[in-house]
């Protein structure tokens, strides 16, 4: 019998393997909500809370109906909420016309923004993960709709309306009941900043610049060759910076995940 192979000695020297680093191209754009001041936050929440209470907008759900729906028992019933003898709605939104002036929920707000139907967008800050509402930044800015993230929006507004949570709230352009509130809130909303999207104000300046350039072109047509060189120099001296600035290169350097289960590398010649 062959002798058992001895265990390697304790003091055996091993080559230290260099730390593996993964380099990856990071997103050059950082898109985030602008921070809302504490006073403005309290003002917005208080204004909305008072208004919803005064209007009495509430979603009332008939629990019996809900249970029956879950079981799949409702077959022949109409989808519209029925009114009993007293004329009070059993389920649904109490003033329907008021509900139609609002967009409640992320999907509804997104849909309304895509159709350019909103005046103002308010988003809850306690949304986790942030991907749920992050697209609303670009969407609202592209539609030039003021939007901001309000802390405790869901906690304060949802119980008043009779919902579990309100992650996004939009006010439609046809709003009559909330017109004064929207006008009061809009000046307090901080402007959003997306690096690659021009702001509304910037758009105005751009149009002015193009007008001036057009007038310059007309002048160029009238001028002689000698004057052209002078004009070129003038443009070169007083040339404005381009509208889009190139963001610096961002590279992420990561360490491989040690807990990741990796497959062993396949050998070219499979052992028989």
């Amino acid at each position, binding site marked *: 019998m062959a002798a058992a192979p001895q265990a390697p000695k304790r003091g055996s020297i091993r080559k230290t393997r260099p730390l593996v680093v993964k380099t*990856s191209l990071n997103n050059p754009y950082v898109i985030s909500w602008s921070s809302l001041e504490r006073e403005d936050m309290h003002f917005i929440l208080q204004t909305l809370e008072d208004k919803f209470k005064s209007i009495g907008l509430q979603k009332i759900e008939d629990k019996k109906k809900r249970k029956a729906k879950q079981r799949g028992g409702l077959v022949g019933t109409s989808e519209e909420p029925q009114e009993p003898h007293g004329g009070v709605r059993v389920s649904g939104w109490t003033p329907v016309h008021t509900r139609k002036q609002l967009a409640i929920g992320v999907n509804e707000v997104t849909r309304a923004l895509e159709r350019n139907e909103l005046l103002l967008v308010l988003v809850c800050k306690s949304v986790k993960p942030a991907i749920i509402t992050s697209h609303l930044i670009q969407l609202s800015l592209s539609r030039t709709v003021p939007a901001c993230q309000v802390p405790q929006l869901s906690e304060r507004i949802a119980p008043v309306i009779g919902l579990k949570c309100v992650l996004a709230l939009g006010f439609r352009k046809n709003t009559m009941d909330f017109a004064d509130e929207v006008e009061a809130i809009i000046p307090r909303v901080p402007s959003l900043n997306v690096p690659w999207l021009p702001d509304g104000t910037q758009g105005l300046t751009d149009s002015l610049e193009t007008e001036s350039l057009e007038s310059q072109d007309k002048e160029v047509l009238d001028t002689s060759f000698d004057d052209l060189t002078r004009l070129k120099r003038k443009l070169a001296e007083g040339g404005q910076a381009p509208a889009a600035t190139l963001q610096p290169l961002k590279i992420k350097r*990561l360490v491989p995940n040690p807990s990741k289960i990796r497959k062993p590398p396949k050998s070219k010649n499979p052992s028989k």
Partner: protein
Amino acid sequence: MAGQVKDREAFQRLNFLYQAAHCVLSQNPENQALARFYCHTEKTIAKRLVLRQDPSVKRTLCRDCSSLLIPGLTCTQRQRRRKGQRWTVQTCLTCQRSQRFLNDPKHLLWGDRPEAQLENQADFKPSEPLPNIADLSKENVQTQALNTTE
């Protein structure tokens, strides 16, 4: 930040193409074909040179038609609920391909964790390399065999 990197020029090019696509679309939303061309070029370069891209970059490019996905312009984003789980569904308006992302508040990508960053690893320099688990198990077996024979 991007100091000593192997393919710095290539990364620079990818960065430029990605930003050019955004710039072109923001100036005129009808320039979708040009933006798509830039993104396709970027994808091709990254594939050819085997360069990684952060998930935040990859998620803004359509995996099918290489369109730059901008909500409300080239894609739609909706929240869906299925099998008791909430998903963010992103649909490309050019090719109708949809991508789903699970809305799990506990989940965090490895790249976004602080311990994954190389900067945070600077202080951790092991004096001895960590032993391989497979080798350790073999050693244990061998020592046990020796003990039994004795």
